[in-house]
């Protein structure tokens, strides 16, 4: 009887995670399709007249926000479902409704962006109706997690109490997120500005990077167990993070130039994560089928750390600011590092069902296309840095580079489509038997 219950619980969990994967991939495919359309428009501006009022600028908002709040955010829901046990037991029935609420708010937000609603803040583009609907969808997630937390009270040892304390702290932080999104999207408040470029300062980049590092360090605890090897790496990593947090506070939040040594040296402190992150992840047990994407995310992380620091150096940033070079760098972060990390997390959570992400063709297609994209954009950025009109008006060299970029975008779209199709197959396989029978009968 217990075995049956465990099987049912495992099926529930697998189904909830599979649903998350499907929703994430849906937004990835939609976002990629828009990206390809935008790349075509840059090559053939005459096509803009097809779009009427839904112009390039409005689609850019949709493209960026779907990538960030759809593809890049939804997999973290799978992680939270798992950590708080929402994917098992009675709460599991509410995982899909929460996903629907999230996706519905994104769909409605997309319509509002296309209708001309925008906050004017990059990556915090929540305005009007969507500025309320999206935080409410996040609140629905929080309620599910809180209910699951209250329901699961087991274990009385120190480890269990520590885990419950950490989860409670997590709930408190998560509760603040919807409000933070709402407030930060408002017109008031703007992060420190580097007066020489108009971009972020070294300190503010260090701050946001440390949030990413904190998430990276936290993830394994919700995904797997520690191994007995390399225990030093775990402790050392947390100590380094704390030290860097102190450094970040010491650097302050003033509008300071990247020419100040304290700024680029402070940001350079992130390079310590080049050896530390792989060592940290090696201290945990991972499923065998995660190896490919785990390695990919660690390579992209290393590339991001190094290129991010080099691009911030005096002289280099002055050359690349406002150019395609920095678009390439953002792509390293989003399509390279973050995508590989998210897929790695989903494969770990899906277990044997992780096959949807581990096909050789799509793995190589995605990663090599991202790399090619980054290289192309760096070349374009270099040329643009020397001659600002390089991308402003149509020209042969610019067009060749943009055609190559379009080709990489199409390949990435094809890879993401394959994942989405496989996720749909998986979902169908994971559908409870009575529901499937009912569907077939209706058909």
């Amino acid at each position: 009887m217990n075995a049956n219950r465990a099987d049912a619980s495992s099926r529930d969990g697998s189904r909830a995670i599979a649903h998350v994967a499907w929703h994430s991939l849906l937004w990835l495919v939609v976002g990629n399709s828009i990206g390809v359309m935008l790349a075509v428009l840059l090559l053939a501006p005459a096509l803009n007249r097809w779009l009427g009022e839904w112009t390039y600028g409005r689609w850019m908002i949709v493209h960026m926000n779907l990538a960030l709040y759809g593809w890049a955010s939804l997999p973290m829901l799978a992680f939270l479902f798992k950590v708080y046990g929402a994917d098992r037991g009675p709460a599991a029935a509410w995982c899909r409704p929460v996903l629907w609420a999230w996706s519905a708010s994104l769909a409605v937000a997309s319509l509002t962006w296309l209708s001309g609603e925008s906050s004017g803040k990059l990556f915090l583009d929540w305005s009007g109706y969507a500025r309320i609907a999206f935080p409410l969808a996040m609140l629905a997630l929080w309620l599910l997690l809180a209910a699951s937390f209250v329901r699961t009270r087991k274990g009385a040892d120190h480890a269990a109490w520590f885990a419950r304390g950490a989860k409670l702290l997590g709930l408190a932080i998560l509760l603040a997120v919807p409000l933070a999104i709402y407030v930060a999207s408002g017109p008031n408040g703007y992060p420190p500005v580097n007066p020489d470029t108009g971009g972020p300062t070294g300190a503010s980049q260090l701050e946001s990077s440390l949030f990413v590092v904190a998430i990276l360090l936290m993830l394994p605890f919700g995904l797997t167990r520690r191994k007995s090897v390399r225990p030093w790496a775990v402790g050392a990593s947390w100590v380094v993070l704390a030290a860097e947090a102190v450094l970040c506070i010491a650097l302050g939040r003033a509008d300071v130039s990247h020419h100040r040594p304290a700024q680029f040296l402070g940001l350079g402190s992130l390079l310590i994560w080049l050896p530390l992150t792989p060592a940290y992840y090696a201290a945990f047990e991972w499923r065998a089928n995660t190896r490919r994407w785990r390695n990919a995310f660690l390579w992209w992380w290393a590339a991001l750390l190094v290129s991010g620091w080099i691009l911030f150096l005096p002289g280099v940033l002055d050359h690349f600011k406002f150019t395609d070079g920095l678009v390439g760098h953002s792509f390293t972060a989003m399509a390279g590092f973050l995508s590989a990390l998210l897929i790695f997390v989903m494969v770990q959570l899906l277990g044997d069902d992780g096959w949807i992400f581990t096909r050789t063709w799509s793995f190589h297609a995605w990663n090599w296309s991202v790399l090619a994209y980054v290289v192309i954009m760096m070349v374009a950025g270099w040329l643009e840095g020397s001659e600002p009109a390089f991308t402003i008006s149509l020209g042969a060299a610019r067009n060749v580079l943009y055609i190559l970029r379009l080709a990489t975008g199409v390949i990435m779209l094809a890879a993401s489509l394959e994942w989405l199709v496989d996720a749909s197959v998986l979902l169908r396989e994971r559908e409870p038997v009575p529901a499937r029978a009912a569907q077939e009968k209706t058909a």
Partner: protein
Amino acid sequence: MWTGRLRNSGWQGASLVAITYIYFLIFAQFAFLGRLAALGIAGTNLKAVMAAMAAGGILLSLLTPRISLWSSPLLRLRLGLSMSSAAAFLALLPLSISVAIAVALLIGAGLGLLTVTLVTHLGQWCGEKNQLLKVGLGTGIGYLLCNIPAFFAASPQVQAVAAGLLCLAGIGITPRAIEVKPNSRSTDRPAALPFSFIVACFAALVWLDSAAFFIIQHTASLKAGTWQGTAHLWTNGALHLCAALGSAWLLRRRALSFVLSLAFFVLACACLLLLDPARILPASVLYPIGVSLYSVALVAYPSLISPAASIAQRGRQAGWLYAIAGWVASALGIGMGQNLGHVPPAFVAAAGAIVLLPWLLKICRMRTREIGLVAVVLLAAFLIQRIHVALHAGDPLSQVERGRRVYISEGCIHCHSQYVRPDTKDVLMWGPVESIEDLRRERPPLIGNRRQGPDLAEVGGRRSPLWLKMHFFDPAEVSGASIMPSYAFLFRDGRGNDLVEYLESLRGPGTQQHVTEEEQWRPSAAALAGVDAADGERLFRRDCATCHSSDGHTRAIWQASFKRLPPDLSAGPFFYLPPAEMPELRFERLAQITRFGIPGTDMAGHEYLTGKQTASIALWLLRNMPQAHPSQKQSIP
């Protein structure tokens, strides 16, 4: 044996479907109306004629399955074709209004009798295999032939004769005998949906189609983008044929509701795109696809898919379907097009609610929790938003503030930065530099992170309102190889002028100092070393001729709006240049003007050109401008 096999191939059924569609599309919808227009029948008289056609159609659609007179299907089919043919030939005569009404009645009655009889027994004329495909083929070929340019553009008389002859040919190809079976159905997947619902779905689709058709037909710009020109017509024909075959395939593979939903989705997109004439191209692609998708189903449902228990029931269903969905909904659609001139989005939504009802019900039944939570979240957001708006209703915005909103709404930030980096090339191109304190006063600052176009932090000092407006209308024309899309739509209401006002406000206190720095600029030695007059001419044609040649496009369109008409550089006058006797000074000034424009005028700079390109233009101008001009003055009037 061979003739038996040919008879069983179903070509007769496909041909009859094609003939019926051609007659309806090219004669009843086009040629007859053309004849009426030529005869001067318009206004109320035209409405009376069209009402007679609809009345004849409705009457015979409903009566055909109910009366027992001449009950042989073959006889009825031939009678329907004969009536239709006769009506087509009668339309060639000089009709008075009363005769036109009688002919219209005959057209409607003939079509009513023909269509209901044809679909009631079509299963027996479509061969034994792939009956749906025959229906798709017949429909697709019918539409394709109507779109053959020579046929489509022929005179109404020629079209009427062709339609009449086709009907006579139809009589010739009808089988000599018919084997009356109790019932036959080609699909093993009967439609489980109620008949009344099917009628409502088709009515919604026909309504959308007719409204869109009328709007396109009576709007010159839309018509030009859809039905005029050989390429358009061949494309339409090909789309119709492909969509018709696709519809048949989908009807075989998927349920009827899937095809109707797909047809709705495509037609709805076309109707919504038609709201904006700028989007006629995608609308012209979607419209024929949507029409053919449902047109095949409109024939296939009563003839092959309907789970009718008897021939009589099949006939009655066909009668109701064509009377309500075919004639009534079509008239209502035309009325909508006539009175509103567009298909309201709310109507599209209502039509969608009908056609998509099975899917919506299924989702509601299977996903109660999901829909409930989504509804709660979206509804709560709606209420909170309303309260928020009510509580924070402030003073009305100034024009500059409204323009800033437009700048944000249009996502300008994704291509244009507003930050001039100190001590870089930015300063001379797009300066002067703004202080961080000034920047932080903006709510929010619009620095941006990418330049696909120039920096706009100080654009008000570089561009006149007229130049900005001209550029928004047609960026590629005004700004050479600009990749920016047109924003002419912003000027349909006040948004465009608001945006121009906002951009004009973007200028800091350092503008005058910056102008001085621009005047000190000279092409570098490297630029002068590579100067090329031929390239200068090419660049002049691309970037300058639109305003500075006598036949320039921008000059012609906006000539009444310029503060002073831009000089034709092949003639003059040249108010801002040193005398021709000082060629070196003249060259430098030409280069400065080319690069930075003339402050306080509509002449904008071309800051994005390289020094070499600027010098090349200046050199070419210097060599080709007249050395003196009768009206040349050294001082600016």
